[in-house]
């Protein structure tokens, strides 16, 4: 573990780098493990690598709170939590052994459990309790806190989830953690796309302990987790084909890490976020559907405008997750009123526009 003096020295190095970049209006490209380089639009600039700003700051299992510096490897956090029977309930993808906590929060990507039908499910932002941020004025700001409930000040720490480093360097994060479920089972069913979506909506209307779903290749997989009796009861009611515990765990890890063969084809991969009850996409390409229908992965060479128009018509949006975004950009453009607010927010935190220019949106700053 790093000594306090080392931590202070690393922080002062990062602060100096930001100060110098801001003074010279030189862009910085924030990158730690680089496991999510593919995500978002390409950005240029001098490398700012915060990986040395690392280490667990506090972890108190009975308070359900963990605080760590941004460079802390995600695998370390997972294993520390695992030792105490706890986990990150948003089940973040690592996309590689070098993934860090800072990158996880900045990318804002959540895994299979994000789509759980049980109480307490949520995305990265739902579990962020506090954060420290190095802004474009080279100041260290401290938002939120380390307690479960806190409405003092605007909740900027949650705003950082998914901000892709455009507001500054996420230095430290406090997360709400969750106990691991006592029991877990995976079942699968032979079902077509429409029938699988329908089945998920029906399950979601009752308090079944569904913590993940994935449909592809004509098969719907469902993970049930919670109290032993609740899982047993659901298994009886659901039926389907049982997947063994080890295979089940491997299957969901494969979905989370996109190691399944579906994710390996040589086609652009769209991440289409929709209301769960939206009808089938009906776009050319192959799909893998998660989150009870709320997340539809589409491997397709389809035109960006057509894909985005269909997603918008269904009440959602389409991100080009893997592939060359070109002039269409990785993310769905914002309506003008929101774009203005976001551009102003960006310039409040990063007045010189130095952080990850263009990573989120190409034209306006940020």
């Amino acid at each position, binding site marked *: 573990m790093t000594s306090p003096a080392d931590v202070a020295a690393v922080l002062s190095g990062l602060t100096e780098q930001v100060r110098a970049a801001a003074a010279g209006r030189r862009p910085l490209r924030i990158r730690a493990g680089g496991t999510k380089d593919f995500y978002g639009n390409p950005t240029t600039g001098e490398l700012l690598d915060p990986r040395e700003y690392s280490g667990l700051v506090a972890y108190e299992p009975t308070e359900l709170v963990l605080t760590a510096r941004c460079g802390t490897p995600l695998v370390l956090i997972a294993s520390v939590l695992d030792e105490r029977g706890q986990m990150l309930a948003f089940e973040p993808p690592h996309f590689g052994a070098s993934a860090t906590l800072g990158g996880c929060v900045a990318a804002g990507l959540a895994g299979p459990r*994000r789509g759980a039908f049980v109480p307490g499910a949520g995305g990265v932002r739902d579990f962020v309790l506090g954060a420290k941020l190095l802004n474009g004025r080279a100041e260290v700001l401290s938002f939120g806190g380390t307690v*479960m*409930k*806190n*409405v003092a000040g605007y909740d900027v720490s949650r705003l950082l989830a998914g901000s892709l480093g455009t507001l500054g360097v996420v230095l430290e994060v406090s997360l709400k953690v969750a*106990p691991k479920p006592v029991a877990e089972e995976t079942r699968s069913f032979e079902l077509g796309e429409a029938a699988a979506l329908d089945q998920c909506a029906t399950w979601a209307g009752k308090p079944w302990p569904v913590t993940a779903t994935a449909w592809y290749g004509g098969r719907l997989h469902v993970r049930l987790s919670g109290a032993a009796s609740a899982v047993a009861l659901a298994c009886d009611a659901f039926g389907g084909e049982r997947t063994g515990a080890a295979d089940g765990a491997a299957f969901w890890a494969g979905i989370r890490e996109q190691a399944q063969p579906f994710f390996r084809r040589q086609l652009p991969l769209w991440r289409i976020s929709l209301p769960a009850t939206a009808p089938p996409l009906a776009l050319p390409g192959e799909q893998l559907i998660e989150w009870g229908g709320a997340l539809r992965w589409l491997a397709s060479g389809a035109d960006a405008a057509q894909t985005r128009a269909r997603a918008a018509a269904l009440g959602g949006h389409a991100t080009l997750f893997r592939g060359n975004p070109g002039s269409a950009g990785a993310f769905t453009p914002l309506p003008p*009123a929101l774009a203005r607010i976001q551009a102003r927010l960006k310039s409040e935190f990063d007045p010189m526009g130095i952080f990850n220019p263009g990573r989120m949106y190409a034209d306006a700053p940020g």
Partner: protein
Amino acid sequence: MHIPVEGTGPVDHRLRRRAAAALQGALPPGAVLVEDEDTRPYECDGLSIYRQSPMLVVLPETEEQVATTLRTCSSLGLPVVPRGAGTGLSGGALPHSGGVLLSLAKLSAILEIDPRARTARVQTGARNLAISEAAAAHGLFYAPDPSSQIACTIGGNVAENSGGVHCLKYGLTGNNVLAVRGLTIGGEPVTIGSAALDSPGLDLLSVVLGSEGMLLVVTEVLVKLMPKPACARCIMASFGDVEVAGKAVAAVIAAGVIPAGLEMMDQAATRMVEPFVHAGYDLNAAAILLCESDGTAEEVAEEIARMSEILRAAGATRISVSANEAERLRFWAGRKNAFPAAGRVSPDYYCMDGTIPRRHLGHVLRAIREMEQKYALACPNVFHAGDGNLHPLILFDANDPGSVERAEAFGADILELCIAVGGTVTGEHGVGIEKINQLCLQFDAPTREAFFGVRRAFDPHGLLNPGKAIPTLHRCAEFGRLHVHQGRIPFPTLPRF
């Protein structure tokens, strides 16, 4: 020496007449209240120790009328204070002497319940409980349940990011809102969030939730509904010592259980509510815990057995489990009526809202006991024990000279203690006007300036609810001086009683 509060003091009648004429010309008859006798009901919210006459009150009935009001106010440079049901406990809806109090109570429709998507689209003035009532026919409910849920509005819940007794398991307002539609101070409509689980760009919903009406005027909210659990049962556990009860809470969490509700009441609180509610509380216990499980009957039986065992091992002196729904509701009735009960045993009470890391509970409660002596005021405690959110209820009598000041100073001491142990001054009631000075202690100057930056991004001229939630640099400098040299008199320009 005192720190002036923006928007307090007498109303300027010439400005009032001019503003009234502009708004009356743009809005239907009756939508603008001008005379003192009509605006008086709006002079305070649920924190009645602070009162201020609004310059004008506007009561729009449609979103278009809200937009017209905002456009008019913004062109005249008039501050706007949005208000829901006025149940807020931090003075967040305290009027502005030179501004418009914008009551959104008439926008109360439940626009759409989609049982398949498990969502409800409601107008901002819809009551929290009305959403669950409308959803009940479909076996669904809206989970966040602040004590004021009979009266409080969803718009107010969004403004404060309200919690309730079930938020350890079900989350706060912020975890249960999918999208808001609102108007900027310029009257421009924006939709933030969507029926999908995420939206492109920065997650603006994060900052809008809990922003105390300072970023947008919310007109519509899309909330998540949850399937109603088939069964719920509640344990009432007695403890001979408050600290032992606190450790029992930690033991439950450490065992991997997230109860549907986990509340603590100290003896002063149980003795205060029992005569009114007859909840059957153990009045000899130093503290009781209410520990609820919900889910299928089998799951509940399993969890109740497990929690009972843990509580017993942690030193519970008596354990009873609700035998039926009536008894479960009675257990909760005592807790949910703690504030009204305080109002019945004492002429006035002042409810605090700090959150602390739970491990400091014993120390904090002991310190509050000492403060009771110091300020010669009683202070029963109710506590959202699962998530560390304390509600000390300082009892006082405003007719007793000096008592209001002692209550305020007592409250400020509690808040500062919460910060000192690594907690926060507000878990769910908001900063409003009440805790604005303590924010100087909780956040440093650059962080507070960043909050103003967020505000400017939405409302460049700072006309929405000015003077609330975030203290200016100047206020903090003044507070620092007062804090050190003279007791604490937060708002000497406001009338008190």
